[in-house]
């Protein structure tokens, strides 16, 4: 069966982003300043980093989706906030703790998906709710603070007025691409995603790589949460919540098939950029929260209609 071809190459997607940017500039003439573009890129970077995990999970196939990303990100931020107490010396440990937590929670997702017949969406939804409980429990107790070094790393400009987060994003993108193309894990992931049975018969143990995938998703979500904290510089208990759906849309828009086995992180990056630009356009057009929600719902449906239709019963 011919695989559905995705929206041309990733390059086309980036082109689309450029067009949208220009369109934005037309609608709002004093928009296209260097500072504004940098700001947009910063926001896209946060989404982009949170989309790393989602990309891996969707690639793993069989309707893999991680709906706990927002919650795990928030939890990571909570841990950094509470355990660093705003001190730079405690930051590394706090961050380490957050990453370990992300890894563990992700592994929980992985175990559920690998060993029970629960659809990943339901499993991760359940774990996400559990993490919400953890957030409420842990977050409501102590008061913490944001360590300055985190803000320095993320928000303060490094070179050419470009803040650290952008460099972090590029670094992570390169790492993820290396992971997908140059490591055994990457080959196993793509194999699992395109035909789980064939992957099994080719000597890949599905359970192991599934658990790893969801664990990594949790890891990058927690990392993303810490970075998000350094970006907005305010802590609250629903910090990461609004990012979950956009990561799914970014992955699908970027050309990664929901059935798995096809796609790349560069596509998700373009997808993240696209969404950020779209959100910006919607904001400019004074569309409020409700409109944005509706817009995203409709956009996701539209993307699914193009990319993700299932086989009919009639052949």
């Amino acid at each position: 069966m011919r695989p559905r071809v995705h929206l041309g190459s990733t390059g086309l997607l980036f082109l689309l982003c450029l067009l949208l940017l220009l369109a934005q500039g037309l609608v709002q003439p004093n928009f296209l300043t260097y500072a504004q573009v940098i700001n947009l890129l910063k926001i896209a970077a946060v989404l982009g980093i949170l989309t790393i995990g989602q990309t891996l999970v969707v690639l793993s196939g069989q309707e893999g989706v991680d709906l706990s990303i927002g919650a795990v990100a928030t939890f990571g931020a909570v841990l950094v906030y509470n355990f660093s107490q705003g001190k730079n010396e405690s930051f590394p440990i706090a961050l380490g703790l957050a990453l370990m937590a992300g890894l563990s929670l992700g592994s929980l997702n992985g175990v559920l998906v690998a060993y029970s017949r629960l659809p990943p969406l339901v499993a991760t939804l359940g774990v996400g709710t559990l993490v919400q409980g953890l957030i409420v429990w842990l977050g409501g107790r102590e008061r913490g603070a944001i360590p300055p070094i985190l803000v320095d790393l993320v928000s303060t400009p490094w070179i050419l007025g470009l803040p650290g987060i952008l460099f972090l994003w590029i670094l992570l993108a390169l790492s993820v691409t290396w992971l997908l193309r140059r490591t055994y894990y990457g080959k196993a992931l793509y194999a699992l995603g395109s035909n789980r049975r064939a992957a099994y018969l080719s000597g890949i143990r599905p359970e192991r790589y599934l658990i790893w995938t969801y664990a990594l998703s949790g890891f990058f979500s927690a990392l993303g949460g810490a970075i998000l904290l350094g970006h907005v510089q305010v802590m609250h208990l629903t910090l990461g919540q609004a990012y979950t759906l956009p990561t799914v849309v970014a992955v699908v828009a970027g050309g990664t098939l929901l059935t798995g086995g096809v796609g790349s992180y560069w596509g998700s990056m373009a997808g993240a950029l696209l969404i950020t630009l779209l959100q910006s356009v919607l904001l400019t057009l004074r569309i409020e929260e409700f409109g944005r929600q509706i817009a995203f719902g409709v956009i996701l449906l539209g993307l699914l209609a193009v990319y993700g239709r299932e086989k009919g019963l009639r052949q």
Partner: protein
Amino acid sequence: MPTLGKAEPLLEVRGLVKRFGSTVALDGAALGLAKGEILGLVGANGSGKSTLIRAIAGIVLPDRGEIRWKGQAFRPRDPGAAWRAGIAVAHQETSLIPQLSLWENLTLPHRALGRPLPTLKEIQDLLASLGLGIPLETPVSRLSAAERQLAEVAKALLWRPELLILDEPTAALDREQVEALFSRVRDFVRRGGSCLFVSHRLGEVRSLCHRILILRAGRVVHEAEPTSSPEELLAHMAGRDVSPPPRSHGATVGGEVLRVENLWAPGVQGVSLEVHRGEVVGLGGLQGQGQRELLLALFGAIPWRGRLWLDGRPLFPSDPSEALRSGLALVSGDRQEMAFPPRSVEENLLAAAWPRFARWLGAWLQLDQARQEALNMAKSLDLVYGGLETPLANLSGGNQQKVFLGRALLVRPKVLLLDDPTVGVDPPTRATFYARVQELANRGLGILLYSSDEEELLRHAQRVLVMVRGQVVAILEGEKLTRERLLAASLGVRNEPYG
């Protein structure tokens, strides 16, 4: 087209063509069935039988061609149209819902299409005549394979159709059940019905049908009388002449490379065998007698008990990963479980071989080296393709099978397990495939080959183990390896009641 006498045929099929991706399932199939006739349709695996049935049943939409029912063009938009027209099908893969009860299943078409339900008496009488004495509330999931097959037929009969289509209805049945089924079918036809009987069990087809059509590579190639010999029918099914084929010259056989003792698995009942280096050992017998399960068990893909030695070392492959690492590789003819369709030819070739190219515990793969080996492999397999980057889905079925062979070879195995690797593949590609296999044997590989095509076994294997119901009932080699003995052993005494 066969002459049908005065009346117009009840069912007519003309020039039906159907493609699934790169596979051509039907290539201009045509037939005519008269009212009151029991027409037999025989063909090997992959000949297009099921696709043809499913096109008539409204499940598959043909690309080209025409079906005529009672003289009018018949284009069922969905299976309901076929049922309503008076065509009832008992499918090979039963169309029963496991979670529902027997009664709910038997009456499903009536409920779906708004027809009055058959009376309880009618159902019970029918079931009794088929030898199916099960309470109607039993969920179908608890029925045995034989019971399910009979239930599938009962469901079709309960509809009181004009045309009854039976697709391989006897695979799981014993002699008595087959006789009971046949007498019901004859009864049905006597009362004005017609029947299309699809099977690869030649004895049964010859005893039940008025006329036999042979399907090969998606078209009807021959029409025969029921009095034709099985050999003649087989020859037309396989597409070769009736004279014995030239035997490929076996290489000198070396030491024992694989030894299996008392292997038990679902479908395998205590099989023991040895394979030597340079030897091609065949697994023969009718389809579904455990050959596939044996190979899967050896590969660790299904649970099994028993003892295994590879190159003298005891081994217990509990999953394919272990099997591959130890030197056992499997190539299956079922592309659904082998192919990574959107991935490139290169990726498909290397899918199992990456551990050989992995450094730093898998954190670094030597992509260039791997690519070179993949390129060499493609060349040595005479692969017809558009370059390593081509998606696998663009290759023909036969070439895809070559890729899977290449995948197995890139792990440098000691023993090659071949599970009907060339089913549905065109003859020229088949030839290159087996030429390569023979080369591998010459180079010292041990090969265990299952083929649903008896000719292939006769041609390529030095020794054939014939399996019936999960057991090895005969070992044929040398002079004793002839088509007649193979057929006789396959048909067995218990299994096949006729011929």
